[in-house]
């Protein structure tokens, strides 16, 4: 255990985000929306600084009591650092791509970067929480910022609808989690993960089991796993695309990291109780995500179903309930973030002659002849999401399924991977429309020049290089970091 000053030192990144967020809020109030670009730049700089603060914990594989702050409420170990780095990267990407999108409708407000910062702060707390109370505070801080972000285009009906839907269903899920937490507390006598794990060892009281199920159900909502996935396509479609980019990446990382810490940490002594639930949820997510995507005509809805599908694959790593499985999930998450960012940046770059965003898949027909670079990037994302080697998306599936087989879940692995073929169908459909069909000539031939367009292309280039076959050269490094992070998770658990 650490004293108060050491605790404060451990949460340096969170403090930085809080202070910068509040200062920027004041700046926005005084300087108005003209300052939005400056505020975005400061926000990006703050996230980069946070990344530098978090990186040593990961590279050093730090764990143990000296990384625990505030009497077991919070830990700044390698596991949380891994998740935080992914969250910062997603946050930076969605800040960079925002101005060009919002400027077109004159909706670039100074609040956007600040809300992203607060959401990131909430996610930081989620991934670092080692107590149900700090978990809940982080979850709510993130969710409240996210509800506002979803309805950020105030005069757009779809955006407002997305925000409302997200809010109502999100509040319900939070209630479910809270109910589960209170049951867990009632039957174990503690909210601390380690203490809960200790108290649950041995026979599981029915009340505690119900608590466990409720907590996991609420978390399944947050990671948009079947059967709590219904909100995802609507919110992804309705929210402004930069916000969708954010939703598809950062909160997913945070919620999955949180789920891992709760399942393997707090409920780590009752693996048998939740393993079957996770197996069901993962297979259901894979199948529903794949089947649901087939009929979609909007690329954002398709990517939403794709994210449900991917969560299913990620949960296979959790079902393994081993350190290898946790490590595999982290590798998959890193690759998933890169794939999603690349996918959404491509969508953001698609605009018609008048600069309106193009979202209908049919309008992308023949893109390979009008915008070849963009078409190849999109094809790479699609094949990568489908898990076809040599693209890097395959590696994520590879490690996850390997972990499942090594945990003696051969049947789960076989069924899961066979179901991934269903998913391949709709990814192929996108490639078919982009490459095989006659050009629809909806997408404007060349994007405008300027800093913003260049920034999009740089983000896309980085993400595409990561998911290209060159990504395999990173596997030793990525695997090493994920191993350190999962070792920290297991140490704490």
């Amino acid at each position, binding site marked *: 255990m650490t004293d108060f000053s050491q605790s404060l030192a451990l949460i340096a990144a969170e403090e930085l985000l809080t202070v910068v967020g509040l200062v920027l809020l004041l700046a926005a109030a005084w300087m108005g929306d003209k300052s939005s670009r400056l505020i975005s730049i400061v926000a990006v700089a703050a996230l980069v600084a946070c990344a530098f603060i978090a990186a040593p914990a990961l590279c050093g594989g730090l764990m143990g009591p000296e990384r625990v702050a505030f009497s077991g409420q919070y830990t700044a170990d390698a596991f949380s650092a891994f998740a935080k780095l992914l969250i910062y990267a997603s946050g930076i990407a969605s800040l960079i791509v925002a101005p060009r999108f919002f400027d077109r409708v004159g909706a670039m407000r100074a609040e956007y970067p600040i809300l992203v910062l607060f959401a990131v702060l909430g996610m930081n707390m989620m991934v670092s929480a080692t107590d149900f109370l700090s978990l809940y505070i982080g979850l709510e801080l993130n969710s409240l910022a996210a509800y506002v972000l979803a309805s950020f285009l105030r005069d757009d009906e779809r955006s407002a609808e997305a925000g409302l839907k997200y809010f109502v269903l999100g509040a319900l899920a939070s209630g479910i989690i809270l109910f589960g937490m209170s049951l867990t507390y009632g039957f174990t006598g503690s909210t601390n993960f380690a203490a809960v794990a200790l108290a649950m060892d041995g026979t599981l009281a029915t009340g505690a089991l119900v608590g466990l199920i409720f907590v996991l159900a609420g978390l399944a909502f947050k990671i948009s796993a079947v059967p709590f996935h219904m909100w995802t396509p609507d919110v992804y479609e309705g929210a402004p695309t930069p916000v969708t980019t954010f939703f598809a990446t950062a909160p997913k990382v945070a919620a999955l990291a949180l789920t891992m810490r709760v399942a393997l940490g707090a409920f780590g002594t009752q693996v048998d109780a939740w393993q079957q639930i996770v197996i069901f949820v993962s297979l259901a997510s894979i199948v529903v995500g794949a089947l649901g995507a087939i009929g979609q005509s909007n690329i954002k809805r398709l990517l939403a179903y794709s994210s449900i599908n991917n969560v299913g694959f990620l949960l296979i790593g959790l079902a393994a309930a081993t350190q290898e499985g946790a490590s595999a999930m982290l590798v998959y998450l890193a690759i998933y973030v890169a794939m999603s960012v690349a996918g959404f940046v491509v969508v953001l770059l698609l605009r018609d002659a008048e600069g309106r965003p193009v979202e209908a898949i049919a309008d992308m027909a023949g893109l*390979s*002849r009008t915008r*070849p670079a963009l078409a190849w990037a999109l094809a790479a994302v699609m*094949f990568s999401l489908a898990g*076809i*080697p*040599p693209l890097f998306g*395959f590696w994520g599936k*590879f*490690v996850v*399924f*390997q972990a499942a*087989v*090594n945990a003696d879940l*051969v049947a789960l*692995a*076989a069924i899961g*991977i*066979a179901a*991934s*073929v269903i998913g*391949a*169908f709709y990814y*192929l459909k996108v*490639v*078919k429309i982009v*490459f*095989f069909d006659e050009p629809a000539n909806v997408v404007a031939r060349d994007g405008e020049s300027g800093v913003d367009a260049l920034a999009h292309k740089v983000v896309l280039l980085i993400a595409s290089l990561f998911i290209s076959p060159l990504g*395999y*050269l990173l*596997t*030793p490094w*990525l*695997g*090493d970091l994920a191993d350190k992070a999962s070792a920290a998770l297991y140490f704490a658990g």
Partner: protein
Amino acid sequence: MDGFPILSLMLLVPLVGAAICFFVPAQTARMVALVATLVDLALGVVLWASYDIGGAQWQFVERAELFAGFSYALGIDGIALMLIMLSVFLMPICIGASWNSVTKRVGEYMAAFLMMETLMIGVFAAQDLFLFYIFFEAGLIPMYLIIGIWGGDNRIYASYKFFLYTLIGSVLMLIAMFWMVREAGTTDIPTLMATDFPAGAQNWLWLAFFASFAVKMPMWPVHTWLPDAHVQAPTAGSVILAGVLLKMGGYGFIRFSLPMFPEASANLAWVVFTMSMIAVVYTSLVALVQHDMKKLIAYSSVAHMAIVCMALFSFNVQGLEGSMIVMLSHGLVSGALFLAVGVIYDRLHTREIDRYGGLAINMPKYSLFFLLFTMASIGLPGTSGFVGEFLSLAGVYQISSWVALIGTTGIILGAAYMLYLYRRVAFGEQKNADAAAMPDLDKREWAMMLPLAAAVLWMGVYPESFLAPMRADIEWLDQRLEAAAPAGDAHLSEPNPEAAAEHHGEEAAAEGGSHQ
């Protein structure tokens, strides 16, 4: 050649060529592709020339620990060498076949073909289980694009079918691979080939691999993607598909299924035999009634690959050698036949057999080549087809006379549909004026046909050149299979040589006596 990474170089040359092709205009892309494939062919010749027959089992070995979980390990034995030679030999011909017929998006087309070449060589040269899988699966992407972008009318259906069929076959294999690696603790293919997996698990593993290779091969009843893919693919796509991609299935059996799971192979050989027997007869009959030339040749491919399957599971040296020679021969012959179809398709833009006729009159040189390849497909002595099919069926006969009997009917039916095709296209009267006006082969077409014809005759007359590098590897495999090999059904009554000699001697004496 010690230490020089020639296999990596062979992978790299087409890859660099592919990268260049993306960015250059059409004519330059054609040249780049041709040069890259010819350089690879030259490297392949060097590879063959410096391959030490009777030397180490694995040669040109390279290894680098670049990745987590698996390594970049390359190396070849004689079997892989021959299949790599087939790939690099067919590639320049494919580029030549697309020289004039592909006019849209030439750069991307050439890039896709060069990527295919890298991946094909990678499949045969990979010495790491997962590296093999990556190369094996990655071939789906360029082939999907080749069929889908440059294919015929129904290309989209065909490309989906090709992709999804092969994908579902392969993913189960991946799970089996995970299990094997966990059991054996290594991803090294040569080590795994000598690992004895528990007999109970072997059947499951074998079935998972079978799911993948049977689709690739393709075996009845999962062959239905092949006719669609072939008919819709551009000529060069068909050549590569028939010439090399199908061989990946056979290579998979000989490299993985047989040496890694010998007991399961013996237990489940009946599955292979049943499916192959049905395939030989059924697809040959289907080929007989086709109106579309490419479809006919596609079905004949299924029939030929069924003979390969039978021979692979005959558990003796003749069968294994025969299957390899049929694979090589079929690679050349079916490639050549698709090319021959492509030549007249380029002129008349139809694959309907009825639209041609009497081509021997206005295209005598073409008809000569077409005849040679038709005969090679039938298995006429002197051509490569005869050597392979004879060895294969001789091998199969040792294990099951019934399978050999039905397999042989495939050859008779093969003669029927091929000769019938040839008669309708090349002989008879010139009933279509436009077909009668077609010019004979030009220089480019000569340059594509001649090497294929030479290779077919070489393999038919002196197969030793091709068998010699593989002999030691096939013997190794035969020894590996020996313990598991099932008994044949021929129940030979063991003759007593001495008694026979005496008996013979008496007879001779009696004959001699009677003559006196």
